[in-house]
């Protein structure tokens, strides 16, 4: 489906299909990196930028998804301090055990011994470039080639950033990701 939308990008009529197919996932990607209010705005901005630049979209340099993720990632980059603050806040507090008497059962997501707190602290310790490649792979499910296309960097750069990030995350969390 992604490939079939490549030709829809330049056509204003068919751009709606691109929006319908990818808005939710771009919003979710940004919303997992920044506060939701900001993410809502940046998701909209991502598609406005894409719409304005639709004529310069080059399918041969990657598909629609990497292109959109690339725009979104650059917009997130303008808020990198806010993103790091968010990770640090999560690392400090984590999910609360109780919430002012709300007796809902609260669950801290734990998988393979990795907690929100630990992982947030580890993500805060990555450089911007390292975090971008990790989260494009983790949240966007992009391949290395697609990450390279999204960020406009060489495949080797993606590989070296991921390698460094993996080492830092392993040292911080004590498990291999």
């Amino acid at each position, binding site marked *: 489906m992604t490939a079939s939308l490549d030709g829809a990008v330049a056509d204003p009529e068919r751009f709606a299909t691109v*929006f319908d197919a990818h808005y939710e996932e771009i919003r979710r990607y940004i919303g997992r990196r920044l506060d939701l209010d900001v993410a809502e*705005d940046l998701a909209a901005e991502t598609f406005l930028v894409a719409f304005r630049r639709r004529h310069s979209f080059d399918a041969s340099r990657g598909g629609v998804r990497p292109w959109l993720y690339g725009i979104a990632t650059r917009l997130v980059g303008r808020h990198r301090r806010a993103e790091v603050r968010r990770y640090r806040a999560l690392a400090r507090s984590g999910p609360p055990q109780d919430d002012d008497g709300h*007796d809902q059962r609260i669950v801290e*997501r734990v998988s393979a011994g990795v907690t929100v707190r630990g992982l947030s602290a580890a993500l805060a310790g990555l450089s911007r470039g390292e975090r971008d490649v990790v989260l494009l792979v*983790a949240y966007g499910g992009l391949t290395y080639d697609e990450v390279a296309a999204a960020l406009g960097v060489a495949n080797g750069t993606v590989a070296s950033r991921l390698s460094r990030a993996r080492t830092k995350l392993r040292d911080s969390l004590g498990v291999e990701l």
Partner: protein
Amino acid sequence: MREFQLVDDVMPDVPPADHARVLAVRAEVLGGTRRRRRTSVWPRVTLAAAAVTGVLAAGAVVVPRLGGDRTGTVSPSTTATAVATTSSPTASSPEEALATAADRLAAQPPGTGAWWRREAIRTRRAWTKADPPFTVEHRLTEVVWIDRQGRRRSEQGRVSSSLPTAADRRAWKKAGSPKLCGDHDDCQIGKVFFMPMRLKQATLPEEAGALKALLLRQRPKDRVDKDEEWLWAAARWILLDSAATPRARAAVYRMLAGLPGADVVGRAHDTEGRTGIALEHGNAFIRQQLVIDPTSGDLLAVQTVVSGDVLDAYAVRRLGWTDERPPEATD
């Protein structure tokens, strides 16, 4: 395991998008216009959704499900919200009818019982990613319980899904008749999600001016919503998800009616076919509506309307204090 899947699994997720906001963004994008910030007519609508499941500073909440599929099979209203009648009180204008309804609501007794219970039918229309895309309408029953100490529980029924128009049914068939959200358990409505915001609950003033002042003091400092947008969002939360007294609820109506851009429409329908007065605001494209029973002042529905179609709604079936108790929370 996919590379870095642990990051995806562990890190908090985001709640589903507000469909009205998606529509507004879509219209702006396809119009190629620069988007004004905070154009949603239900600003931070997810705040209210989160409040239903217990607002958390960070974390996840398990929402227990109602036993069986009770959507559309709940018992009729027996407490505060009676089934609306189409008869309206004698009033020379919609504004006067709303004022009368607010007076009638304020005159209701605060109610007795250990738990406050709000039961609503939630309806939400959503696009699918099929080509061509089609719209699916999801519907579920949602019950919120709050006790006298402010402890909160919520339940959700199973989601039922349908295709609202013949065009949607054709597109769905063309897409291979895929299973709809309500056909399986992996349905996003009601799933656990992350919500980083919270609204402090306080004893609410029962006079419109004092209520407005309190809400503006509680407005989060890091938001850039206009005052009116914040007040509409907070009002929605108070009406749907807090055990506010009838007098405080009436104050909410009066406060909203006095805000710039608010309109009162004499006759509007909710998703359950009931008729009431609509207190609304928004723009030519999207309107948010409170539908109010003119004879009692009770809230019938909170809904988002786009070009005459209701896209997202909470139709209130019951609301008020009760001697009933919520079911015990289960895993």
